[in-house]
């Protein structure tokens, strides 16, 4: 690659070596990993377990798309199909999307970015990973025992009185996963508030930290409501009496309220950390401070705040009062604004920059395009009347996949590629990863754009069979899913390959300004040899240039 279209600056590969001591080889043996308090190792444990669950969830998605290739219910039985999409939803939401960026990249980077040696509570961080694993195993147990077919939303009274599948086991799993997420969020908030290095003021923090801070507030305050709701569902299922059963005087809408009080903020838990990644990537590859830093920072907090007040837009046709539907619709429109602000700020970060197009940047562009569509189609659903036609159809499926997969997963992959050299000390293969990024983008659009159309036609979600006239669009979608599958398999393969054969990255291959790039890669166990003193703003590339110049002169 020529000098003019990349910022990548690797050490001379003939002489470069990996650092002698770093967090990976600091201690040996399986036990040293399983009992570690080091946030970087826990991040790695999370990364591995999350990847496993992503591919389990992805396999279910593949089976679902395969079944939908034909209008007839021919591949699997209806029961199996219902279990497939339930498991796909539960695994992807609770075991992949919620912990994806925070528990892996966030865990690895938040302490380093604020200049701390570790998260505030290393043991609770480890506990969070164990809870995650226990939750995962519990949910897989439910799967192995015969599965569960509630849909990921556990809608009462279906889940409490009408199913004899493993609802309890799954609910226990989700309950535990919730506490795993609470502990991660708690750790982040405390760390960001109390563990910042000297000079690291709030407005010198990378936007990645702001985004995680906002998401963590949602985790800490929202998740317990899900926990108590699941407890009530379990009690109702066991004792046959409860507060959600209309024949006994309960109200099933109460369940919807409590469930969505968590599950709507949960989508912000999923997307906000991804937005943090995008801010870092866009800035680094256009060599420019993020346009409107404060606006982007505050829009994260605004999303977190407004995010608590919009949940009933999941229930517009479910019998909430028309008055409250009005209020929630209005608030939904307001929460869309901070996302628009972010998109435009990122776009204008490019202006007057010096842009290069490495893989993380390609993923980030993918994010911006797909998230824009995902966000604007969200306005369709927030508009009351429109929601009547669109909700519970494939339109909504397409919408949240655009936000979650097109947004969050793209951001996750952008982040993994961006920080891969920092986490492992080695570069991924550039051209192969660009191919993967483009494949993912094409596959994604092919999969989910037809679903908007088939959704407006009226095809309901969670349908095992459908009218024949929807087939062409479904075939397109399945074809796209195949491409998408390839796009997701590629990174696993070449990233694994790069662990041994990748080029040695050096401290700062992207010449980025974050504190994490000023230390060795992979970092030492205590991150910093001495506590850093921060005397520059975030994304200050001039500071970096001066620093590099100084180093060159001292060495020379």
């Amino acid at each position, binding site marked *: 690659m020529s000098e003019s279209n990349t910022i990548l600056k690797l050490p001379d590969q003939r002489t470069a070596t990996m650092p002698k001591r770093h967090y990976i080889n600091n201690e040996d043996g399986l036990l040293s990993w399983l009992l570690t308090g080091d946030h970087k190792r826990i991040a790695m444990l999370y990364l591995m377990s999350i990847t496993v669950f992503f591919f389990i969830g992805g396999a279910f998605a593949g089976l679902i798309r395969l079944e939908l290739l034909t209008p007839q219910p021919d591949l699997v039985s209806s029961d199996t199909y219902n279990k497939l999409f339930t498991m796909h939803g539960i695994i992807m939401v609770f075991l992949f999307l919620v912990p994806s960026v925070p528990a892996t990249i966030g865990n690895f980077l938040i302490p380093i970015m604020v200049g701390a040696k570790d998260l505030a509570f290393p043991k609770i961080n480890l506990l969070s990973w164990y809870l995650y694993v226990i939750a995962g195993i519990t949910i897989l147990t439910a799967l192995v025992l015969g599965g569960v077919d509630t849909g990921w939303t556990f809608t009462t009274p279906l889940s409490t009185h009408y199913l004899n599948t493993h609802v309890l086991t799954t609910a226990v799993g989700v309950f535990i996963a919730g506490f795993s997420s609470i502990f991660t969020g708690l750790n982040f908030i405390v760390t960001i508030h109390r563990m910042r290095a000297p000079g690291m003021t709030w407005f010198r923090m990378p936007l990645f930290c702001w985004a995680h801070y906002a998401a963590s507030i949602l985790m800490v305050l929202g998740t317990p409501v899900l926990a108590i709701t699941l407890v009530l569902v379990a009690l109702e299922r066991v004792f046959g009496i409860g507060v959600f059963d209309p024949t006994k005087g309960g109200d099933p809408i109460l369940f919807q309220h409590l469930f969505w009080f968590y599950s709507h903020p949960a989508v912000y838990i999923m997307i906000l950390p991804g937005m943090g990644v995008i801010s870092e990537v866009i800035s680094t590859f256009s060599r420019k401070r993020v346009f409107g830093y404060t606006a982007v920072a505050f829009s994260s907090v605004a999303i977190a705040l407004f995010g608590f007040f919009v949940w009933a837009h999941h229930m517009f046709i479910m019998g909430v009062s028309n008055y409250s539907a009005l209020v*929630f619709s209005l608030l939904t429109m307001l929460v869309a604004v901070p996302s628009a602000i972010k998109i435009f700020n990122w776009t204008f970060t490019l202006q007057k920059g010096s842009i290069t197009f490495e893989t993380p940047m390609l993923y980030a562009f993918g994010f911006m395009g797909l998230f824009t569509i995902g966000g604007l189609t969200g306005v369709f659903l927030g508009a009351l009347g429109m929601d009547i036609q669109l909700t519970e159809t494939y339109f909504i499926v397409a919408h949240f996949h655009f936000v979650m997969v097109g947004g969050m997963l793209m951001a996750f992959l952008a982040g993994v590629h961006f920080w891969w050299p920092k986490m492992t000390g080695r570069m991924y293969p550039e051209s192969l990863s660009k191919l993967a990024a483009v494949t993912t983008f094409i596959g994604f659009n092919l999969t989910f754009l037809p679903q908007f159309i088939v959704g407006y036609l009226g095809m309901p979600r969670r349908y095992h069979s459908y009218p024949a006239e929807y087939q062409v669009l479904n075939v397109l979608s399945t074809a796209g899913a195949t491409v998408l599958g390839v796009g997701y398999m590629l990174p696993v393969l070449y990233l694994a390959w790069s662990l041994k054969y990748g080029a040695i990255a050096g401290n700062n291959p992207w010449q980025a300004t974050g504190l994490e790039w000023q230390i060795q890669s992979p970092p030492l166990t205590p991150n910093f040899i001495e506590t850093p003193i921060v005397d520059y703003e975030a994304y200050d590339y001039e500071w970096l240039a001066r620093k590099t110049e100084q180093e060159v002169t001292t060495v020379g």
Partner: protein
Amino acid sequence: MSEHHEYHDPANVTNPEHAEHHIVTPLQYSFVFLTLLVFTGVTVGAAYVELGVLNPIIALAIASFKAVVVILFFMHVKYQSRLIKITVGAGFFTFLALVTMTLLDYISRAWGLW
């Protein structure tokens, strides 16, 4: 929560958002203890008096007062940093958000369709 930055003192580099440690004395605790006992008596007594709609209001007001006393003194929030105070406030704020926004639906359902 966005106001936290205002309370951060950049000069305090090793321990941001901090409050001087304060030890509450057993004497203060005893006063608090007595207050709580007295108000428990009051709330039980009030329950036996017919006051109409005031009954639940008085009971909840006393309970809230007792909770605030416990939070301020037994839990030392009075002597903590503003960060802790805001945090406690944020918890109750979110709880109120849950209650009011959900009640909005239940109350307005009775207003009929349109």
